[in-house]
């Protein structure tokens, strides 16, 4: 007995000694692993971004040259050598009047981005000044029961972003308010399910443009007396209707496919219908509901641009469209800036929903 204990101690000791040398080895190896992970997680993405920018730059340059040569050629053919020389000189001088209008280079886009920010700073300052100027007057008007005077100047790019976000969240909450309760009812009742099935199958694939037109038809009539601008309502309702299908389908699926064991528990405990829905069915389908909401938000953001553009509702979609129509020298660069902003915000929204989804899923996280 005693012997075995000492033996155990010794092996433990030896084990520890062995472990500590092993640990060194291991940490050495770990460092190597870390280095590899660093390479994979930091160096490779940075390199790929640089490669992307490089290719973009070269591509933009090539397109620029094609267009410049075409312009010189055209001038030569139509007006002769002198005009062609003028054109070449004009293009080389960087004069905005004759610049080739094509895919902007990364540096042009960066410049536009900064000019958009500057523009925002100017407009904000202007707005603040306006507010200050009208503060006293507005107070008086409100006291008299009149509407206060509001700033009606041009919105900046950053304002457009926030308006788009407002529209997308309004549409998202509309989708949530319709799709989650409806999905629960459809999931609970096979009768409702067969009643709604054709409806879902047919309307799910309808394109955002058509949804917009439909909502336009209805809302225009509903708001016929109102002097209000209906473009915001139309666009957020259309966004909501376009994007709610994923939540509707996922919610009804989650509700109708609750684990039979949980239903048996509800029966054995004799939970009432209300309790059964709120204590068993909803918690167990929350992960699927949130999967649906995540898809809904990303669809909402994607269709938003097209719908804003159609509805002439202020926001990034309208910004892109106006820049395109505008055809100013830096319009193309601004459109590309908007493209990146749209992409990055979409990515952030997706991350946001993913973390909420992980949080409610009882398989992975700690508590609801």
């Amino acid at each position, binding site marked *: 007995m005693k012997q075995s204990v000492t033996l155990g101690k010794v092996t433990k000791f030896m084990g520890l000694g062995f472990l500590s040398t092993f640990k060194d080895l291991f940490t050495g190896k770990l460092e190597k692993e870390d280095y590899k992970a660093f390479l994979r997680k930091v160096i490779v993405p940075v390199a790929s971004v640089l490669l992307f920018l490089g290719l973009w730059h070269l591509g933009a340059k090539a397109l620029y040259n094609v267009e410049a040569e075409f312009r010189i050629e055209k001038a030569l053919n139509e007006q002769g050598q002198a005009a062609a020389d003028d054109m070449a000189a004009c293009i080389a001088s960087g004069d905005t009047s004759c610049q080739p209008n094509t895919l902007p280079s990364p540096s042009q886009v960066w410049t536009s981005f900064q000019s958009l920010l500057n523009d925002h700073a100017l407009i904000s300052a202007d707005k603040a000044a306006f507010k200050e100027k009208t503060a006293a007057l507005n107070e008086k008007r409100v006291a008299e029961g009149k509407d206060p005077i509001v700033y009606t100047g041009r919105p900046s790019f950053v304002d457009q972003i926030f308006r788009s976000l407002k529209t997308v969240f309004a549409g998202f909450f509309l989708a949530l308010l319709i799709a989650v309760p409806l999905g629960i009812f459809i999931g609970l009742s096979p009768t409702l399910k067969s009643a709604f099935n054709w409806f879902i199958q047919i309307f799910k694939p309808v394109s955002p443009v058509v949804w917009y037109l439909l909502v336009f038809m209805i809302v225009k009539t509903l708001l016929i007396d109102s002097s209000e601008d209906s473009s915001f309502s139309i666009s957020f309702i259309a966004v909501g209707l376009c994007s709610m299908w994923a939540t509707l389908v996922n919610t009804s699926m989650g509700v109708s496919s609750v684990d039979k064991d*949980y239903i*048996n528990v509800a*029966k*054995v*405990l004799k939970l009432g219908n209300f309790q059964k829905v709120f204590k068993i069915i909803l918690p*167990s389908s*929350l992960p699927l509901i949130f999967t649906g909401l995540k898809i809904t938000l990303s669809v909402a953001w994607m269709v938003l641009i097209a719908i804003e553009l159609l509805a002439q509702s202020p926001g990034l979609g309208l910004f892109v469209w106006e820049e395109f129509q505008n055809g100013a020298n830096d319009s193309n660069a601004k459109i590309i800036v908007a493209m990146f902003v749209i992409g990055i915000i979409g990515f952030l929204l997706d991350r946001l929903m993913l973390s909420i989804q992980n949080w409610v899923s009882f*398989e992975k996280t700690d508590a*609801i």
Partner: protein
Amino acid sequence: MAYLELNNVYKTYGTDENATEVLSNINLSIEEGEFVAIVGFTGSGKTTLVNLINGLLEPTKGEVLFKGKPVEGTSHERGVIFQNYSLLPWLTVEQNVLMAVKEAFPKREKAVYKRKAAYYIDMVGLTPAINKLPKELSGGMRQRVAVARALSMKPDMIIMDEPLGALDALTRGTLQDQILNIWGKDKRTALLITNDVDEGIYMADRIIPLRPGPNATLGPEFKIDIERPRDKTAMNDNPNYKKTRNAIIEYLMDIGEERKSQVSEAFLLPDLAPKDFVNQFR
């Protein structure tokens, strides 16, 4: 009149050509205060039988009577410990038990519920894990939560579907004693499904084998005439114990053999065997 009675009960799953008769002609009666164990092979229809008794399933034919009245749906009078625990994964240990307590004793104060839940959680030795989620527990701990949940409703009859299957021998022994304690204290009625003959002998007044399905029926019952409280070590020397144990195991082995031979004969002589040849083993 028996406390629980099953008369000529049949249970068929599916319809028409997909129909399989899992249980056929089950007759069982359990007296008030009795502890009955049913032993059977896997897949023989034990869970199906349990669900018929607790009211989750309805018999295709025949009747299930509890206290003289037909069983219609579930009831708080019959507590169930499910074979697969069936804990709600989004609730903690305490919340799982609380949910049952609240349903069984409506309109009490919150502190009363908490105290009751704590009492039963303590009884199964899970007080340290009271705020854990089921996925943070071992299989045996989950099983104990299920036991606490069922007992916390103070049912008149406890129906247990292989409740201790996932436990190690030591924990199993303690929980067996705890279940016996509770059963004996208020003289409740208990039905235990098990695949362990020794567990059945230690705990039950009667052991009834369920013959292998399909068309499973109950075999002859074996009375356990050993005085309570029983002692595991002393029981080994009890001549009664040895006799009963041997008889049950022999019976189970026989029907096991029968099942095997049925299957192999049917495969070996598919065309030659006349119908009666297979049937005579039934």
